[in-house]
């Protein structure tokens, strides 16, 4: 852990995020001329590649990474479980089932500029949030373990339904479903940015105001209650706020795994577990991490783009094992 987390956030992570935003749009097979900076609305190839493809994509990766990482921080705190992410609780599973159903049934409608696939993802995610919330309310004490187990059970149930639909569908439907399930930022556009921005901003504001509550929830329910916190109510508020934020992200980007688990754990090692520092650190680090992963995803192969979910998972898998070994060693 660094001696001054605030300085680390202000003087290392913040400049790193700004630099990532400034440099990454220039990276790719085609290098636009620097004067493209002054022609944001132009219709030439350089301007289109820079302003309509790369800048939205880098911004989308940055915002999605911020939200996914923040989601991990909050879920690990409210469930006091280092492996909890919003995906563990079925949000991604619900969204994926919605998309699979939309593709399987051939829904091609567009409402208010939002595609049928995105809408299906949102409806699916909201459905799974409602089910987990229902489980939490049905059990009198809103126990973290009941919610986690309920969410995991729903995820498995949805995964099985997705597999069944894939099995029943034709080759091209299956390919579209698999591609969506891998998580991918190639749908980036100005509209996509404006679609997820309200979710991310409200998620950041709510958790930023509730950092003391997150600290208390991450220790012990009775202790938190004795300090004046309404434990059950706060757990539900944070669960719903973060799940909605994640639903917004998944709707546009698909289920991009491992950011929500890697970024919070790395940040905890660097700035400590106090959410006053951990929240801003994880937001910035998550944004930078996903942007770098996505840049790698779109430049690593010359023939086609690799879905970013594959890159985050390839990096995330070994990290996960390292985390488990480290934990096992520290507990003797």
């Amino acid at each position, binding site marked *: 852990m660094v001696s001054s987390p605030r300085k680390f956030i202000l003087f290392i992570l913040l400049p790193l995020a700004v630099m990532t935003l400034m440099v990454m749009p220039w990276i790719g097979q085609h290098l636009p001329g620097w004067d493209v900076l002054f022609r944001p609305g132009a219709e030439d190839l350089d301007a289109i590649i820079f302003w309509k493809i790369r800048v939205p994509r880098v911004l989308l990766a940055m915002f999605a990474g911020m939200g996914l990482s923040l989601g991990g921080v909050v879920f690990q705190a409210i469930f006091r479980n280092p492996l909890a992410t919003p995906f563990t609780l079925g949000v991604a599973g619900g969204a994926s089932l919605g998309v699979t159903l939309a593709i399987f049934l051939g829904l091609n409608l567009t409402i208010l500029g939002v595609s049928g696939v995105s809408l299906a993802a949102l409806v699916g995610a909201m459905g799974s949030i409602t089910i987990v919330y229902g489980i939490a309310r049905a059990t009198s004490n809103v126990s973290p373990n009941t919610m986690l187990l309920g969410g995991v059970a729903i995820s498995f149930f949805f995964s099985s339904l997705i597999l069944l639909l894939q099995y029943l569908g034709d080759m091209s439907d299956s390919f579209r479903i698999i591609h969506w399930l891998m998580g991918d930022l190639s749908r980036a556009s100005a509209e996509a940015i404006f679609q997820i921005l309200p979710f991310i901003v409200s998620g950041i*504001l709510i958790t*930023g*105001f509730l*950092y*003391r*509550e997150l*600290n*208390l929830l991450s*220790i*012990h329910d*009775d*202790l938190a*209650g*004795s*300090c*004046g*916190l*309404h434990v059950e109510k706060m757990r539900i508020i944070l669960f719903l706020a973060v799940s909605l934020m994640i639903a917004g992200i998944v709707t546009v980007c698909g289920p991009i795994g491992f950011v929500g688990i890697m970024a919070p754990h790395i940040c*905890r090692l660097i700035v*400590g*577990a*106090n959410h*006053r520092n951990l*929240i*801003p650190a994880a937001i910035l680090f998550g944004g930078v991490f996903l942007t770098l992963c996505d840049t790698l995803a779109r430049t690593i192969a010359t023939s086609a783009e690799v879905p970013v979910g594959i890159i985050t998972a390839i990096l995330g898998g070994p990290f996960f094992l390292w985390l488990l070994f480290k934990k096992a060693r520290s507990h003797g």
Partner: protein
Amino acid sequence: MNDSRDIAIEINELSLSIGQRRLLDGVTLHAEAGERIAIVGPNGAGKTTLLRLLLGLIPSERGRIKLGGSALTSLSRREVARLIGYVPQQLADDIPFTVIEFIVMSRYAHAQSGGIIPRDREGEKIARQSTERVGIRHLENQTMATLSGGERQKVNIAAALAQQTPILVLDEPSAHLDPKQRESIQRLLSEIGRKSNTTVLTVTHDLNWAAMDFDRIIGMAHGRVLADDTPSRVVTPENLLAIFDANWTIQAHPQSGCPMVLPTHHTPAR
């Protein structure tokens, strides 16, 4: 009975069942301001349940609780936290916060919500006064996970003190500690209670500490109060048989004269 302003805790006919099991059965007790009370009894007697009800963490089925003259049901969680400081049994040993962060957190009921990610400077000042009082100033910047059991329990006590409450409730504060650390925690709690006129209500299995250091002992078994009086009147062979179903020897302490419980001698089988 004194004037009601002097009553810190008033519990009347409190009952709670979970399923078929009766956890508390018509518990009545009063604590005057500044009084030191120990609750003793076997495991499963309902002691911890009583504390959780008192803190408003679980609702009761029947009966009522008043804190400082106000009904518990009329108080918000934050108001209760400004009246009662709580020291739980040992917490998990891998709490990832520093000592000072942990103590500042306990002041949640006093903290002002002022904008996004504000720093609680007032809370930090009061947290430092608490560490000074408990004698752990030197541990302030250490992570909780690096502390010994006794040190962690001192941090818990400092955190409860930082809540600046007139009542302190403790759940087996010296359990799981070696004899030296246990004595150190008990001495600390004795000094704190007497210096600050704080009402102290503690659950303990240490009958000798209860007899030596408290104004009153409440003996509980099967969710009921079986004895509630001064230590010399509660620590008797008859009461201990009723509460613990055990025949123990009682002798007067050679210096203070207060009753001490000795384990029954039994010859090992050959």
